[in-house]
């Protein structure tokens, strides 16, 4: 028995930076993957005891239950402003916001633009699933043209509702942005690439290079009315052509991290 234990090698476990809790996320939702990757990054960088997260309003409003780091819950869209306050008074801490598309790209557009533009040394993980999940599937700023939601029952008519906002492309124009990339998590290869980006984003902050933002093109099986597998296929077929994956801003010095 003892011999057998000695021979065991743990190859997979819950990251230390995640709590041992059941999440409230729907089956097949990408939030769980992103949470895990962020926690793995925190573990690998050894920053659990100096990281402070800020949860948004939306499906990930309860993120503070799932990460085992200090956490605050912000008003809808205000996470970058709150993060600014937290970071400015303790620049040695690692501060990240976790925001959805309604939170960041609609009600909080002002806060994110100015926080990025100031070059705040904070990191934002932006989950774009083209819908308001928590309130039951309304049009988001990132909802695709023609996409049916409960508030665009005939499909998003861009003449009335405007066009989906491309956040990375917008943020990349700002001088304070150091690292702005778009990733997804629809297959193991993309998940590995996403994790690398998350680690880089934290490293950008640790090096004091400026704002880092990782957008994750995500899914919502529940409100899209699809199985998890179908939702991943829908991302590839419909979301990625409008929201291309890639690096939109990689400031000088980031490559060497």
């Amino acid at each position, binding site marked *: 028995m003892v011999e057998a234990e000695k021979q065991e090698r743990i190859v997979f476990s819950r990251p230390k930076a995640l709590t041992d809790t059941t999440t409230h996320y729907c089956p097949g939702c990408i939030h769980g993957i992103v949470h895990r990757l962020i926690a793995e990054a925190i573990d690998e960088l050894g920053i659990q005891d100096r990281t402070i997260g800020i949860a948004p309003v939306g499906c990930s409003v309860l993120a503070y239950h799932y990460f085992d780091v*200090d956490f605050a*819950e912000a008003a809808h869209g205000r996470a970058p402003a709150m993060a600014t*306050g937290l970071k400015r008074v303790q620049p040695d801490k690692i501060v990240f916001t976790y925001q959805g598309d309604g939170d960041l790209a609609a009600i909080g557009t002002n806060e994110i633009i100015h926080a990025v533009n100031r070059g705040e040394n904070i990191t934002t993980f932006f989950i774009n699933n083209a819908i308001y999940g928590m309130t039951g599937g309304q049009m988001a700023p990132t909802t695709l043209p023609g996409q049916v939601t409960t508030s665009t029952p005939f499909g998003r008519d861009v003449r009335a509702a405007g066009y989906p906002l491309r956040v990375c492309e917008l943020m990349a124009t700002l001088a304070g942005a150091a690292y702005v990339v778009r990733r997804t998590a629809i297959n193991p290869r993309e998940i590995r690439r996403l994790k690398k980006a998350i680690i880089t984003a934290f490293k950008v902050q640790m090096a004091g290079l400026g704002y880092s933002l990782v957008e994750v093109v995500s899914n919502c099986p529940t409100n899209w009315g699809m199985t998890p597998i179908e939702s991943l296929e829908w991302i590839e077929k419909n979301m990625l052509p409008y929201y291309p994956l890639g690096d939109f801003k990689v400031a000088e010095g980031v490559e060497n991290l």
Partner: protein
Amino acid sequence: MSSKILMKGNEAIAESAIRAGCQAYFGYPITPQTEVLEYMARRMPQLGRVFLQAESELAAINMLYGAACAGVRAMTSTSSPGFSLMQEGISYIACSMVPAVVVNVMRGGPGLGNIQPSQADYSQMTKGGGHGDYKVLTLAPSTIQELVDHVGLAFDLADEYRQVVFVIADGMLGQMMEPVELPEMRELRPPPAWALTGAKGRPKNIITSLYLNAPELERVNQELQAVYRRIEANEVRYDTYLLEDAEIAVVAYGTAARIARTAIRRAREAGIRVGLFRPITVYPFPYEALAEVAGRVQEMLVVEMSAGQMLEDVRMATCCRVPIRFFGKMGGVVPLPEDILVEIEALAQGKPALVAQEGA
């Protein structure tokens, strides 16, 4: 030996905050409080502290929320339209029970209004203002010295009750100059145990105002109400002037009160027995003390630079036991001592007390 220096109200607010150990200031330019922001912009970096001009009052209050969560003394200041924008964040701060200080240098409203002095934000400052059941301890200075004292006191009270504390000033107090004695520079205090400083050697801290379970949110509300009962029991402050033998009590706070003092002095010279009751905390309002005054004067005159917002509290305090006359100026118009004197004389001559919107 301490010495007095001549200071503008807005600059006195800023210097007093610095001396009280304010480690972070976030603000947005708006007349008539902008000098607070400008003063902080110069002084805070000199001291190695945080100054940041926000992109809006919405951002400013949420930056303040963030800094307060880190457990440092932090402040913002604004004027009426900006204060309205801050109500969202103030509600979150109140529920989260983090200490913070907000100074409102009130101006004429509603809407964009104007930049002249006003007291028309009384209701939104003393009755909650944002969504949900909360109240905010609100100090009402009427001189620049008191402004200095109240800003320091606001930080102490915020720490003591783990609540946001307001200082209710107006464009007159913000813009005028008076000699003041500044307090000594205080040591910065370390962050409290609940602060978000990184979970090093302790379990993680969470600061939230979200309680999806209704009984749990009810319990949080009960905790908040218990704090407000403690504040109401311990922090009521008021001042009186020539009230001992008065037959008429003028009730006013802030700038209206200092103008009323002049009118009262002149009325006394004319032989009218009139005095001043001045709430210093407008929440908690000095209901009991004013009720006692109502039992021994014949009439009251409420003077405000609004349509009569504190008037409602005076009515509640006095329970209709004494006739109340109201004199209010609105829209940034500041009453003159002569205006108030006319009202006092009318009461003294036995004219029936009535509630008038624009003088008698």
